[in-house]
């Protein structure tokens, strides 16, 4: 049996996504900026995709901008906003458990003279709200907090965060990296009062290289890529029409029977966690997100367990897949205060709509057989 439990790293594209992308590459390959019919046809795909995505977020389609993925969305959101607002102040607030594409971008902004405050989290990975409130200043221009953490699945209280921010300083731009939230939990930026939101296509069965940014109307932002002025000058460069259309179709499919699918995914996650934590010295670090289980197998290094599972057709991540080629202990797991021996023995199982309870059973069987063997071989 094969069990792909790495859906937070990436997902398989829906067949309909592949179909529309091939059609665009083979037939409707025009440049959306061209004046002739081929251009008009191409442009229509972009409009359709932004309309679909806008609808799922309950926002205007004019507020959707396409990027090359979550990383670019986060870069544009943070650098673009910082540059546009630096006259008002140069202070930025974020959390200690952000994705590398936020942390590294903030490190860059630090080098450019911005001041960044990272707010700590509790043992469940939830941002400390009173610490946040205390950190907000007159010259704070951005508060950026991820929606769902990619490693443990902690869901941040964005509603409360935005309330606190608005009360203390209504001019602050609120950004959220919603890459792991979109398509997994209800995400409505207007209701939650968020100004800018990053999305990724390949986490919701769309193609890699597709992403989007919701930017609330009239929010000041500067481009980080300059050129032909496409997408209202916010993101120059000929639009990646196949990827954009693919992401649109993926969003549409993702939100069909949404509640039922998510319930199913959550059931698999809960079932798996319940079974696997019955094994001796196996611990659950997971948050509320329906699709992410973070499990520590004390006494087995995560890489060893990962490869042992891989050998049985079970695919998981140690740390987060996007940065797993950097050999560092996870910042998130450290931030939530996991003891040393659990830090290096934690795996992420992330579920998707293709997964089944049978796969969870299979993974459990494999793990319960492997654990005693692997635990015997430790450094002495």
């Amino acid at each position, binding site marked *: 049996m094969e069990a792909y439990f790495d859906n937070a790293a990436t997902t398989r594209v829906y067949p309909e996504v592949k179909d529309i992308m091939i059609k665009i590459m083979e037939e409707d390959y025009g440049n959306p900026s061209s004046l002739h019919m081929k251009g008009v046809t191409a442009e229509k795909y972009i409009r359709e995709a932004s309309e679909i995505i806008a609808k799922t977020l309950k926002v205007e389609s004019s507020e959707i901008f396409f990027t090359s993925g979550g990383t670019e969305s986060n870069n544009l959101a943070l650098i673009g906003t910082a540059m546009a607002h630096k006259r008002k102040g140069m202070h930025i607030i974020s959390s200690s458990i952000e994705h590398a594409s936020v942390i590294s971008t903030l490190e860059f902004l630090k080098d450019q003279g911005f001041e960044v405050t990272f707010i700590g989290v509790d043992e469940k990975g939830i941002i400390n709200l009173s610490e946040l409130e205390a950190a907000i200043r007159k010259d704070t221009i951005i508060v950026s907090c991820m929606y769902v953490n990619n490693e443990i699945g902690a869901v941040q209280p964005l509603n409360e965060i935005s309330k606190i921010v608005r009360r203390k300083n209504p001019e602050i731009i609120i950004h959220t990296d919603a890459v792991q939230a979109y398509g997994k939990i209800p995400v409505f930026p207007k209701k939650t009062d968020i100004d800018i939101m990053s999305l990724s296509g390949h986490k919701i069965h769309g193609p890699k290289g597709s992403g989007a940014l919701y930017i609330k109307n009239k929010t000041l932002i500067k481009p980080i890529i300059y050129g032909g002025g496409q997408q209202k000058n916010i993101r120059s460069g000929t639009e990646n029409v196949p990827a954009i259309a693919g992401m649109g179709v993926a969003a549409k499919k993702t939100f069909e029977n949404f509640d039922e699918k998510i319930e199913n995914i959550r059931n698999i996650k809960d079932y798996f966690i319940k079974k696997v934590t019955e094994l001796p010295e196996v611990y659950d670090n997971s948050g509320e997100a329906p699709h992410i289980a973070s499990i520590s197998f004390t006494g087995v*290094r995560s*890489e*060893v*367990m*990962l*490869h*042992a*599972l*891989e*050998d049985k057709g079970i695919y998981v991540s140690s740390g987060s897949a996007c940065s797993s*080629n*950097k*050999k560092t202990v996870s910042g998130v797991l450290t931030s939530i205060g996991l003891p040393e021996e659990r830090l290096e023995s934690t795996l992420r199982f992330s579920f998707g709509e293709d997964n089944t309870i049978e796969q969870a059973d299979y993974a459990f069987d494999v793990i319960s057989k492997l654990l005693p063997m*692997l635990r*015997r*071989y*430790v*450094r*002495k």
Partner: protein
Amino acid sequence: MNYKMFLIKYAEIGTKGKNRYVFEEILCKRMRARLKPLGKFEVKRAYGRIYIEAFSEYDYDEVISKLTGIFGIAGICPVSVVNELEYDSIAKELVAFIGREYENKNFTFKMHVRRNNKTFPIESMEMNSRLGGELLDAYENEGLSVDVHNPDVMIDVEIRDSVYIYSKIIPGPGGLPVGTNGKAVALLSGGIDSPVAAYMIAKRGVEIEAVYFHAPPFTSERAKEKVKDLARIVAKYSGPIKLHVVNFTECQLAIYDNCPHDQLTIIMKRIMFKMAEDIAKKDDCQCIVTGESIGQVSSQTTFSLGVINEAVDMDVFRPLIGLDKQEIIDIAEKIGTYETSILPYEDCCTTFVAKHPVTKPTLDLIQKSEKKLEGIIEPLYKEALETVEVINIR
């Protein structure tokens, strides 16, 4: 404009007496093989030299990069060829050649004309002074001057059936052509040292095979890919490498289960060496190559090296034995393996390395521990060797 011809200088081959012909032939063969995908070239031996003549367009940088990776080449001289044996043609081309080769002409030179073709009417000495004069006429105002004792640039003009003009020497890697000194099995770990050791032995003309010990799930598929990448980089110099991937997991677990932990590395390495020796014998290799350097880790003390060495009869060569880590890194950077070596994938042993391994093992002690493996390790050893995956790296 590209050069029509290159003159290949080689250092040590010249001292090899009767074998010289064989050495030269192998060097030519290596060059032909490397140049083949880049265009139409003829590699030939003439007048006790090796020449490459181009018969098609080619990318100069690509050709030089290929040639500077061939062991046995000491230097590569780009040559301008004059077909008419006329003084005026020679002088004209010489002036043009120096004009093209040196943008800044503020240097000293010496002419070095050889008249091998005695039908050419002007003697060497006279040619030297006349050609030197032509160059001074052309470029003296730009700073060019003559220094016959310690010139910055030696300008060679060889008069044969055609005339060959050259002045620059692009340094080659030196060493001896691979295939002139037998064959070795190199232990590749994925670290910094072992590819450098393999490179250094290949540089002395030795053909390379490699062994990598894979221990899934304790080592990852990526670690194996990394070793393949390293072998590919070394193969750019050494030529094709036959890489043997041994699945070592079962052996390793047996050692772990039966032997004292502080001796694991030593015992493991003794078994690895034996396997390498078996592979070497089967493939007609004469020696084993490792990247060990005295004192780098506990298994590389003189005590440990001695005990490990005892496991095999075959010669084990350790070209890095007296080098410091930084010196090894410098070579790794030069040959291009460093960046790959430092990628952070587990190598085979971190799980199994003891926190406090022995540093002064005695053969007696280790052999006593190995007794505990008798009857257990043999079938695992056999199985590991029978299931070796062979990958041909080019």
